[in-house]
């Protein structure tokens, strides 16, 4: 059947047409921030070149790329072995480690940065311990090392969750064949398993790198002159929205180049499951159990216990002030509600884009996918102001409602759901779907019974990532939420910036604590590792 979409290079069935329409809508919404920035930059088009020169944007861009590459590379090296331990071995306390080691994503990066300075900064806790043995000064934490450390421990879950999900759903029969033909466990992992994990690893690497481009909290506290920091200076100190827009578009450009580079290296490889999934035989770690436990413990200590320790210290210093439990409970409910709906809506929005990108690769789907990713590398303030502009002027009924906040989360965090979704979809063999269609099942039924169950691990991983980052999101929450809708992240920020650290500590600790339960449900709800 030749349908109207044939001219676009897409074979269009009704189902595909529906996916195309949905994906176009999603990509359009996600591209709003970029569109807004183009409008603002063009208003003072003659100053764009001057702005980029004056702010020495080239140097900041190089520094930003260096940091993003360093963070994403380290995050991948940390997370892939961890995902394998959690999904494929008899590691003790697996469920606990899965939840605990995903939680650093819910710690706002500026809180992480404050904790790292408190611990490793000059005159910090560590130096205090080392002073008796004559250590007068630790290596400089400010600048690249600090920013790299904070963002690595904040973003490695971006790699961990999708790779763990992929390990649960890749074709194990090939691995078993390799083992039965005499390949060692290590050889099987590197030559059979790892290549099949490439889409999930690439998706996680990309999320970590692009998040680093957008981060403002850590680079500002650790004094690393990244592009996001320049953009913030333009908005907050100079009140020059046009210069900020020029710099932000530069960041969008860097992000799109990164995405394209990833697409080129990814090529058109497919990693279909050709046989039904067998029950996994978990590798016995034996004596390695101790090493594996120490590895998890070390990571949890730096990424989770350190910030919690510093926060507890602040809390204990100022407990006499009393605690307004009612306000904290309300903020907690607000946080969970907005983050849960943000995660749900974002995941639904990601499905059609991922479907088109995997099943109908071509210029149309590639463009939609790029548009969907365009806002992710932007600092939150640019995204928030874009949505303020469009909603206040064109959608006043939506402005300052919970609906707009959820839309804001979807626009900011779409790639976090898209990446894992896409990686999962690459593993679904279209032949199974075709067989079901051939046997008379309708397209919806096939999607529901055949495709979705196989997608579930990736979809859940994506939803978890969106949920956790939405819990700690600040700039969009401040500007887009209904008036008076206070979340835990807002409470933490308001107190910390007024120097009331002890008052900031409690909502921050509760933020981490209540993120744990939904993370558990989501990672458990996905039937990833059997």
């Amino acid at each position, binding site marked *: 059947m030749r349908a109207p979409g044939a001219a676009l290079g897409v074979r269009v069935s009704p189902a595909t047409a529906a996916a195309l329409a949905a994906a176009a809508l999603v990509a359009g919404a996600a591209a709003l921030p970029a569109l807004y920035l183009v409008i603002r930059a063009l208003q003072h088009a003659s100053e764009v070149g001057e702005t980029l020169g004056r702010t020495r944007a080239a140097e900041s861009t190089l520094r930003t790329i260096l940091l993003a590459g360093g963070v994403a590379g380290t995050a991948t090296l940390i997370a892939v072995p961890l995902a394998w331990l959690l999904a494929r071995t008899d590691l003790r306390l697996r469920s606990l480690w899965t939840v605990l080691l995903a939680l650093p994503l819910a710690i706002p990066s500026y809180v992480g940065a404050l904790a790292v300075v408190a611990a490793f900064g000059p*005159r910090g806790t560590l130096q205090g311990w080392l002073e008796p043995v004559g250590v007068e000064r630790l290596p400089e934490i400010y600048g690249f090392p600090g920013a790299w450390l904070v963002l690595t421990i904040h973003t490695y879950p971006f790699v961990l969750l999708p790779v763990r999900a992929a390990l649960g759903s890749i074709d194990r029969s090939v691995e078993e064949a390799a083992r039965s033909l005499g390949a060692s466990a290590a050889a099987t992992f590197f030559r059979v398993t790892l290549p099949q994990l490439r889409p999930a690893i690439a998706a996680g690497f990309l999320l970590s790198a692009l998040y680093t481009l957008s981060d403002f909290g850590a680079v500002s506290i650790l004094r690393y002159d990244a592009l996001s920091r320049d953009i913030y200076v333009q908005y907050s100190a100079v009140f020059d929205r046009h210069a900020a827009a020029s710099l932000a578009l530069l960041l969008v450009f860097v992000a799109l180049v990164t995405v394209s580079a990833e697409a080129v290296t990814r090529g058109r490889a497919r990693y279909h499951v050709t046989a039904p999934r067998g029950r996994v035989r978990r590798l016995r770690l034996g004596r390695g159990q101790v090493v594996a436990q120490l590895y998890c413990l070390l990571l949890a200590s730096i990424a989770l216990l350190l910030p919690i320790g510093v926060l507890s210290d602040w809390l204990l210093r100022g407990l006499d002030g009393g605690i307004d439990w009612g306000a904290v409970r309300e903020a907690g409910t607000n946080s969970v509600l907005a983050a849960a709906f943000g995660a749900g809506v974002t995941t639904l929005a990601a499905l059609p884009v991922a479907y088109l990108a995997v099943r109908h690769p071509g210029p149309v789907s590639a463009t939609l996918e790029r548009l969907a990713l365009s806002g992710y590398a932007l600092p939150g303030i640019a995204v928030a102001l874009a949505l303020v502009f469009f909603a206040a002027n064109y959608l006043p009924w939506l402005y300052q*409602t919970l609906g707009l906040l959820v839309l804001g989360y979807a626009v900011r965090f779409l790639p976090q759901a898209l990446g894992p979704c896409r990686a999962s979809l690459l593993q679904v063999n279209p032949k199974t779907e075709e067989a079901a269609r051939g046997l008379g099942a309708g397209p919806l039924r096939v999607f529901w019974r055949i495709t979705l169950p196989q997608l579930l691990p990736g979809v859940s991983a994506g939803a978890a990532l969106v949920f956790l980052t939405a819990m700690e999101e600040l700039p969009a929450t401040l500007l887009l939420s209904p008036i008076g809708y206070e979340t835990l992240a807002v409470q933490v920020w*308001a107190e910390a910036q007024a120097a009331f650290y002890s008052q900031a500590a409690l909502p921050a600790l509760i933020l981490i604590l209540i993120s744990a339960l939904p993370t558990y449900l989501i990672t458990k709800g996905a039937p990833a590792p059997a």
Partner: protein
Amino acid sequence: MRRAWAALIPLFLAGLLASCGDDGLPTLTVYAGHHPQLMEEVMNRFAEQEGIKVRLRIGDPSSLANAIIEEGENSPADVFISEGAAALGALAEEGRLVPLPADVLEQVPEWARDRDGRWVGFGGRARVLVYNPERVRREELPQSVFDLTEPQWRGRVGWAPANPEFQNFVTAMRLLHGEDATRAWLLAMKENGVREYPNNITIVDAVADGEIDVGLVNHYYLYAMRADRGSLNAENFYFTNGDVGGLVNVSGAGIVDSSDQAELGRRLIEFLLTPEIQALIAEEGFEYPLVPGAPTPPGAPAIEELQPPDVDLSALRDLRGTVRLLQETGVLP
């Protein structure tokens, strides 16, 4: 899982409904880039006194000012309140604040309000040199920020150049001493090993921890941090001789041009200048009250003793030139 999602839906709808709830009372919408608890307290008292509803949006001053500009004529904001005059100046420059009546403006000293009367200060924010009394004796402290470039201060001073309050101070220096003298001072400070911090809080911490000996900050951080954690090994030194280092900026308020509640807005601004609220701002916000006769914050000298340098705060909104200078000298990226 599915049941958990189903349970969330009514909550979400309730949230949607609550956000469009309206109980018929006159409503004033305030965007406040100021401390949340203080603002909530002020707004609760005002709502009670007037028998109205106040909707309060808290955020940082620059984001809220940018938001009002982006919202355009559809802005829900009636009153804008800001820490520091910069965001107020930016809004006024965009033509988004309407002039206030003279009897409101004249309650505060002339230096604490907009020259064109579009915003009025209600709390003072003094620049000080915070120092560690164990590492520096009070009589060793300089009489001017220009002395900080001398060799005995090498590597002992902290500043926060990305901080808007610091940038206001540099703008004041440009206005008082000229472009060349300011550039020379910035370069000499860099040459003298000044340490850069992200904000005032980290500077006060660094001074108290002995990481540096003195820092250029605003006066109230020390008092707020003390109230938060008890003792801190740091003291404020006030330049009380008209030196630019003793600049006093203000927290202020203005009425947004698109507001349809300008009269209620004016009454809120008058309320901020009453003795009751001036005292609250001093005790809870640690700012200087600006209406003569109100008590100064605990532990700080009376505002009459401060002698701020002779700078028009309205002129401080020219931050563009300051940031350009900071970038030229490599102080800012």
